[in-house]
């Protein structure tokens, strides 16, 4: 939930302190409330994994998770991310150990220039959290908001299917 910061911000009309959790760690930023989450992540927190592609919610390259839900961080004013838990691509691996999706993308050739990849991985992770064994159609739908101009998508779909199979195998 968003705190009632109305009186404060309408009086100050400037930067305010906003607290949120990023990749598991509590962070406080000073920002104008309309600053985009994407810019705060990249410019203040140094997390440049989320990319700005179109800047209007069409391409998915700025995808992050807020409280486990996939969003385009270019469309989220930072005030709306107050007191939430944000996960970016930098928070997907466990230290040096790659996440199953990251491994599968490597193995299947699912990444080429890399601009869309962080968003693809986060969208895939969101999909697998809802549908652990997605069909090909479900994979396509889950990634339909993420554009890739290199791979032609097939390798990406294969990577997600592979990660799902391995995830299922390891959970059995």
């Amino acid at each position: 939930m968003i705190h009632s910061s109305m009186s404060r911000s309408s009086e100050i009309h400037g930067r305010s302190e906003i607290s949120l959790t990023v990749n598991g760690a509590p962070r406080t930023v000073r920002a104008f409330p309309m600053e985009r989450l994407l810019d705060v992540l990249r410019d203040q927190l140094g997390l440049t994994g989320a990319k700005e592609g179109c800047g209007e919610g069409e391409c998915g390259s700025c995808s992050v998770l807020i409280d486990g839900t996939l969003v385009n961080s270019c469309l989220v004013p930072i005030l709306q991310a107050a007191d939430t838990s944000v996960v970016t691509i930098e928070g997907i691996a466990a230290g040096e150990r790659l996440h199953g999706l990251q491994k599968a993308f490597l193995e299947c050739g699912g990444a080429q220039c890399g601009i869309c990849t962080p968003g693809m991985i986060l969208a895939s992770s969101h999909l697998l959290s809802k549908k652990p064994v997605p069909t090909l159609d479900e994979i396509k739908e889950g990634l339909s908001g993420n554009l890739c101009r290199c791979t032609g998508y097939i390798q990406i779909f294969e990577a997600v299917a592979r990660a799902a199979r391995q995830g299922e195998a390891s959970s059995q």
Partner: protein
Amino acid sequence: MRSDPADYELVAPGSLQAAVALLARSPGEWLPIAGGTDVMVQYAAAKLPFRKLVSIWNLPELRSIEVTANEIRVGAGSTYTDIREQEVIESEFPMLARAARWTGGIANQNRGTIGGNIVNASPAADSLPALLAYDAELILVSVRGERRLPYEGFHTDYKKTKLAPDELIRAVCLPRKFAGYVHHARKVGSRNAQAISKVCIAALARLAPATAMDRKVVGRTVMGQPIEDLRVALGSVAPVPLRLRETEHVLIGKVIDPSLVSLAQKTAVAEVRPINDIRSTAKYRSAVAGNLVAEFLYLLNAAGKGTGADKGASDVLARWNAAPSDAAEMQVLPCCGSLKWARAMAARRPLKDEDVLLTTSDDVWRHLGEDDWMKAFHSHPRIGESKTTAESETTEAAQKSEAWARQEQETVAGADEAVKIALAEGNRAYEQKFGRIFIVCATGKSAQELLGMLRRRLLNDARTEFAEAAEQQRQIIQVRLRKWLQG
């Protein structure tokens, strides 16, 4: 040009009451922002005509979906994901559920709200024709209280609405009165996700029940039943989402035949007022509007003939549910070809309806072993041939399976020779590489498309291709189960 965040104020009052109080203090000065999927786009382009914004995202009073005996009350702050996940909307208001799936991609569905979509008032919004067709009503709220008004007429002109400057939409109410209607929604655009429609339709209708007399007189063919009620709404064909009242008027009470369809089509073309823009032309949109209406009428007519068929489907299922296990296995076997699948399906009975049947099948299929997947693969003829490669477990099942395979591959039979030869060569190469026949869900695909898929899949590694074949077989089973239900 980009906006400087220092120039903007954004506050988050945290409750509906506080939000409307703020709007009331200086009406017209504050722009409400929910999930930001429209507002932030304008903001990024420095086209936002406001400097003060009030966040209504995630206000609990706006984000609930209440189900009462007479209506579904969808909080205006419900996201498209919330709507998609609501089963009662999927079953009773499928056109809205479908439009929710078309809206943006998953990330935008997670943030975009139904209230935001209405207030943004784009004539191209995918969900708005569904609200028109379903006779939705809106509840508006301000410090002055609440008022309720029909959604139809809420948009007064391009991007103009009846919302007062101090008001918010609180909820969208959907009356639960459309059982027995045929619902049809379609989007015509470059692609479903992330593309704005060129034209979209939401239409529903109910035919008068066929009388015993009709059946007796006409014998086995059910005579046309008149349209008892019908609503057609289109997006992207006028400054506002448009209900086609005149078209409805010429249709209600009539029996569908080709001359009626053509009259309706002409009326619809005359009724729309589309424009030329970057996505399409007025001329194209008019033609598509007429065609969409015609398509709906053909579907409606087919569904009318199927009123018997639908009943037939539940009869097939009821008989199957009651049959002894081995008979039930044999009946359903031609849909898949794996005896283990058929056994598991029979063991999961009773299955209450088509949806449960289809999801059960998916579940059983995914949990079969690779050997059983192979058995199912072998129950098919090669694409372009008609005999199966395996000895089928029963003759009757084999015949049924072959008859279905012929239907599924009918476009191949009529394809030109060069494509057929290329398919035969591709099949051979495929069998050499993977040691089994090429499995593809051929229904609705042209020979050329099948050839393209075959060539692409020839490049797969064995593991990937096995999974892809299994997915195709899953789709084949779904198509066949539906046919099986129709008897």
